[in-house]
């Protein structure tokens, strides 16, 4: 067998073994015999949740805790059901602001990162202000923003954007900068234009960094939407979950407060799950973070 054939053969073997492993997931004792393993992965968190709720319910019943201190899960569920229209419209407001802020942060963060990657001078001129925006507590800037913006909603949107913007910007910048120097040399050798280098090399290279920034920004946008609303002090119809939280507290309607909290947590979890899914789908073919380790 010649050398070429030998390595071809070796390669073919490597390939078939890769296919074997991907189609046949059974021989992984650590993750249990596939079917039961998958069931357990689903079952354990659910059982844990049900257990916690039962303990909570029993605790409230046994110690007869007043509902304005700690409502039982049943009462919270009742509140959720009864106040559903109010809570849902509040959730919708908060969610809209969060997603809008996130989208603007993504577009703006990536655009600014690309701009800064084009020239050291632009970076020197702009980056300090991005840092200043980030390190100044958003609650402290909120009163000013409120004065300058026409509506409270716009003010909250800006607060959420400021907070979500920085992780996207700094991660994408880092990703654009960490391009392999030899690949840059290769692009230079083949006389790639600046645009080609950006599209074919720098942006794909920055993708994992950007996606890590996206996951952070998604959570932060929600947090900032709530904090922004606290700071802005909205009231009445058209306000978000933060206002409903405060209102429930003033009225000692603790079951509704819990209901609003649960909705907020669920939203946060959903945003995290969605951004993680996007990240996984985009990286699963090639990036070490998303590829299952096989050994």
């Amino acid at each position: 067998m010649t050398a070429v054939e030998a390595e071809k053969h070796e390669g073919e073997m490597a390939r078939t073994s890769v296919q074997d492993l991907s189609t046949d997931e059974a021989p992984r004792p650590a993750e249990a015999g596939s079917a039961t393993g998958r069931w357990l992965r689903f079952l354990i968190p659910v059982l844990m949740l049900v257990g916690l709720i039962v303990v909570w319910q029993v605790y409230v019943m046994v110690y007869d805790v007043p509902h304005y201190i700690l409502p039982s899960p049943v009462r919270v569920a009742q509140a959720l059901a009864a106040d559903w229209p109010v809570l849902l419209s509040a959730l919708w407001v908060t969610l809209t602001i969060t997603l809008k802020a996130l989208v603007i942060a993504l577009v703006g963060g990536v655009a600014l990162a690309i701009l800064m990657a084009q020239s050291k001078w632009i970076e020197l001129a702009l980056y300090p202000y991005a840092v200043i925006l980030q390190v100044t507590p958003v609650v402290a800037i909120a009163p000013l923003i409120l004065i300058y913006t026409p509506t409270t909603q716009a003010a909250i949107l800006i607060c959420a954007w400021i907070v979500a913007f920085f992780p996207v910007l700094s991660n994408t910048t880092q990703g654009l900068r960490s391009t392999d120097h030899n690949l840059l040399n290769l692009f230079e050798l083949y006389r790639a234009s600046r645009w080609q280098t950006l599209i074919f090399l720098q942006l794909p290279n920055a993708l994992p960094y950007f996606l890590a920034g996206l996951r952070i920004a998604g959570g932060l946008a929600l947090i900032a939407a709530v904090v922004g609303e606290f700071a802005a002090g909205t009231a009445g119809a058209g306000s978000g979950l933060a206002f409903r939280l405060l209102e429930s507290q003033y009225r000692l309607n603790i079951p509704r407060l819990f209901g609003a909290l649960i909705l907020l947590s669920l939203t946060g979890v959903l945003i995290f799950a969605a951004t993680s899914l996007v990240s996984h789908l985009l990286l699963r073919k090639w990036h070490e973070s998303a590829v299952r380790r096989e050994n």
Partner: protein
Amino acid sequence: MNTAAIATAPDPTTASHAPLVSLRGVSKTFSNGTVALQNMSLDIGEREFVSLLGPSGCGKSTALRIIAGLGDTTSGTITWPGVRDDTTAKSRHEIGFVFQEPTLMPWATVFNNVWLPLRLRGVSRSAARGDVMEALGMVGLEKFADSYPRELSGGMKMRVSIARALITRPKLLLMDEPFAALDEITRFKLNNDLLHLWEKFGWTVIFVTHSVFESVYLSSRIVVMASRPGRVIDELAIDAPYPREEEFRTSSIYNEYCRKTSDALHAAMEGSEHR
């Protein structure tokens, strides 16, 4: 790239005998004051297989990059007498470069990695398909067009890198210690494959290495370099006929050349120590 240093083509009748690329008094000093290359003069003829051999820091990689047009010279000239219709653009198109690492884009399939040089010239995927598959065929990797680099072994990645360098059908192939990170068995295989391709296609190869054995096995000529400052010390012609196969590795001629080259390299290294 030092455009001014590129001269126009000489008389076409002598072009085939003229060197393909010619370095005259080339020096390179880095911004930190390190003299990477001092007064290097070298002619590379068409269809030659020249190795630049030397200890690390002797400027052999720097010389290769300068020939590729990556980075300027501090002084000296590079001319391309053997390239007709000589322009910077033209000569660059005829260069293939293989780095020490495979330098593949991890997010792109093997096909897309090899397609890259053509893609940058505006050749569409479908128009490039034939060329890409042919280049992959040369290195025996047609079946891996849709694999990602992370799924390949080190030797296979290097083959992809070579296929990518070959796809533009370069006249001159520059290789910067391409097999240094591979195990010996794979390196021997790739040495043989490279020689076969070179004999078949008749490119000019400049091959940077720090291995005496590799350089003797592959080259028609070895340029021995010394470090601090990087400079050419010696030149040896390896007159053993091609094709060279595994028997050559165990022949007495091969051993003789290895000993000579080794001596030249030691002389070069001692020379720099006494400075």
